[in-house]
């Protein structure tokens, strides 16, 4: 049906070949087309991702043996700081929303662009500026920041390293994130195609919507907090410095009031991607659409009220500890609702084991492990035991990398034909999935064991009894990197030489698959009229045996 329509439609250049206002590179860096901006984000984000991966690999290499392996302790401190800042502020927060949100949101809701196209371009420029500032701080005299990505006072006020550029980088990146969120909320409210009611929106859009609200409402807090640290460093104004009566614990509260909701900015779009990919490859309507949609909103809401579980050991009243622990447990309910609904969607589906689904399946398992260890950390008694150990590091890498990271890999493979108009080779992609999954688990699972035994995080040196686990993890990091490289090469080759993709290679039912691959510059000739929900696979469900 869809094909017949696209044959009738007049031949039209895709957005890569459509005439643009500017030429050459200016056609990209000055473009207000959401698709071009999405690709700009993709390229810059991948650059930062591989930089931070390199730092991570070096850190693992350093931990291969106790004492010095390759770098000095101070260098190691700057490594984990930069790894954290880049991964969090430049990769995982903007990752899925800025790349796939930008590219897909207007297509998914049947719009020609986002509501504020110029603001969208400004967001990317701010992102680039912030990223470059973070990188420049490495090469300025004084050396890169060594505070950890959390910038805890009073150390961040006193250290002589380049904390200022790092603070301003985070501030500017926050601004970029706010503008993206503001743009998405307005777009979703005002630009849905006729008939695209709230409950006909694809679930990825729901997750972007919840994320965008958190971006708008939580980010200003980190902005003002980092600004205060900067002012304190620069002018010596007494705000957080205990020598002048300031309260460093207050800093930690303010920091986590943003940074915990930020965790949901990182994971929610990943959960949305899973809800998007599963029904397509299970050939089934998603199970419990409204529950998944509302669970995104519930996660955003409750997740904004749990920040102090990062601070159970810094000194708080028992009442506060109980409340924050209870709320933390509460977040697991909407998260579990999602996981159960995904499994129920797969049940009795006609599963097509394509590459995007493989990544999503790994993601579900790893996200569940990450979520479960998160519950353990939310329990007061266990938290006291494992605070600031590798257990915590293992937990958040399972959620962030095992969850969001794998969802992002799934999203890249899923939307690759739509974005680039070409197919990737399946075999190398499957090999990369195997290596990345094995490497990831080999790298981070030992962290749980080590952490539970008492290996502290961020330490340069360790007792010999931990060495077998460290060796295991370091070897895992090599497998992981091999997998990532195969994936990257496979996709880069496919951009140039892949077989041309049809409009709808996976059999998706959402609106982006109704336009050609890559989409035309205006997305839709005529704004489509939506008459059905997003995952209508009733043709598979109603004819169970006769069909085949």
């Amino acid at each position, binding site marked *: 049906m869809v094909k017949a329509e696209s044959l009738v439609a007049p031949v039209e250049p895709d957005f890569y070949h459509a005439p643009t206002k500017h030429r050459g590179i200016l056609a990209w860096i000055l473009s207000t087309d959401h698709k071009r901006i999405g690709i700009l984000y993709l390229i810059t984000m991948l650059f930062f991702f591989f930089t931070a991966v390199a730092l991570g690999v070096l850190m693992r290499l350093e931990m291969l043996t106790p004492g010095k392996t390759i770098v000095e302790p101070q260098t190691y401190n700057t490594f984990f700081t930069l790894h954290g800042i880049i991964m969090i502020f430049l990769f995982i927060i903007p990752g899925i929303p800025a790349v796939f949100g930008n590219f897909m949101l207007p297509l998914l809701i049947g719009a020609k662009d986002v509501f504020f196209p110029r603001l969208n371009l400004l967001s990317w420029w701010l992102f680039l500026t912030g990223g470059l500032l973070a990188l420049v701080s490495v090469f300025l005299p004084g050396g890169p920041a060594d505070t950890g990505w959390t910038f805890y006072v009073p150390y961040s006020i006193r250290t002589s390293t380049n904390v200022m550029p790092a603070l301003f980088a985070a501030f500017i990146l926050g601004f970029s994130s706010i503008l993206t969120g503001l743009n998405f909320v*307005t777009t979703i409210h005002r630009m849905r195609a006729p008939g695209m009611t709230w409950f006909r929106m694809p679930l990825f859009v729901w997750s972007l919507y919840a994320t965008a609200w958190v971006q708008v409402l939580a980010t200003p807090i980190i902005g003002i*907090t980092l600004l205060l640290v900067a002012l304190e460093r620069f002018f010596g104004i007494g*705000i957080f410095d205990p020598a002048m*009566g300031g*309260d460093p614990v207050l800093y930690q509260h*303010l920091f986590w009031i943003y940074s915990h909701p930020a965790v949901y900015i990182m994971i929610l779009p990943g959960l949305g991607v899973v809800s998007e990919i599963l029904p397509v490859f299970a050939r089934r309507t998603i199970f419990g659409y409204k529950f998944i949609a509302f669970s995104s909103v519930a996660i955003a809401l409750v997740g904004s009220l749990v920040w102090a579980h990062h601070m159970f050991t810094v000194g708080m009243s028992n009442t506060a500890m109980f409340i924050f622990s209870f709320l933390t447990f509460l977040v697991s309910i909407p998260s579990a609702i999602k996981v159960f609904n995904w499994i129920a969607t797969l049940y009795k589906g006609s599963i097509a084991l394509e590459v995007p689904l493989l990544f999503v399946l790994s993601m579900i398992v790893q996200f569940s492990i990450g979520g479960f260890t998160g519950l353990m950390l939310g329990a007061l008694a266990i938290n006291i035991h494992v605070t600031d150990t590798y257990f915590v590091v293992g937990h958040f890498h399972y959620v962030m990398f095992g969850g969001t990271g794998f969802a992002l890999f799934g999203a890249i493979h899923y939307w690759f034909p739509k974005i680039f108009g070409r197919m990737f080779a399946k075999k190398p992609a499957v090999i990369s999935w195997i290596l990345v999954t094995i490497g990831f688990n080999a790298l981070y699972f030992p962290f749980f064991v080590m952490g539970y035994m008492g290996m502290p995080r961020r330490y340069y040196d360790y007792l010999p009894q931990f060495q077998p686990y460290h060796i295991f993890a370091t070897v895992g990091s090599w497998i992981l990197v091999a997998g990532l490289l195969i994936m990257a090469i496979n996709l880069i080759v496919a951009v140039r030489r892949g077989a041309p993709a049809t409009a709808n290679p996976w059999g998706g039912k959402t609106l982006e698959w109704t336009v050609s691959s890559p989409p035309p510059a205006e997305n839709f000739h005529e704004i489509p009229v939506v008459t059905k929900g997003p995952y209508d696979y009733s043709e598979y469900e109603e004819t169970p045996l006769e069909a085949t």
Partner: protein
Amino acid sequence: MNAQVQAAVPVHEHHRDDVGTKIGMWLFLFTELILFGGLFIVYAVYRFKHPAEFQLAAKELDTFVGTANTIILLTSSLTVAMSITSIQEGRKRLSMLLVALTILLALAFLVNKYFEWSHKFSLGLYPQSPELLNKPQGEILYFGLYYVMTGLHALHVIIGMIVLAFMVVFIARGTINQRSFVKLEAGGLYWHLVDIIWIFLFPLFYLLH
């Protein structure tokens, strides 16, 4: 030739949606409120910890200057609101005049602020001054917050003046006119935000002593 290229460029059709524009503006205002909200939290915590010293330090501020600035800002909110009404009635010149008057009032606010700050400096009350460092910790925190919060607010006043200056240009060029004035409304909203933040800063620093 040029016209042809222009025609071939896919123009995103300019559907006007003033409601959407205002939604975007309100979201931005939320972020500004939360930005200052963080500062209000810090203020609340430190005031709770050092009530007596905060009261003592507040006596150093000049209530008269603060009141004058409050009146100036409230008046400027009135003028910017009136400018929107005038453009709706098609009185372009009056509208421009009222926005210009708003900018002048903002300038008056800043001049006042300048004299107020320099007076504090001459008394030796500035960050890291020996005079201030000798005072109890609660007072150091009070003056730290005073400079940060009124300083950040003053920065918003300056940004607001720049925004309003653009509004004058837009009205002059006719970009903002009787039928399309959502830009002026957005600019006005921003100015009201600057105003309302001051409405909270004023009692917290000048009146609670």
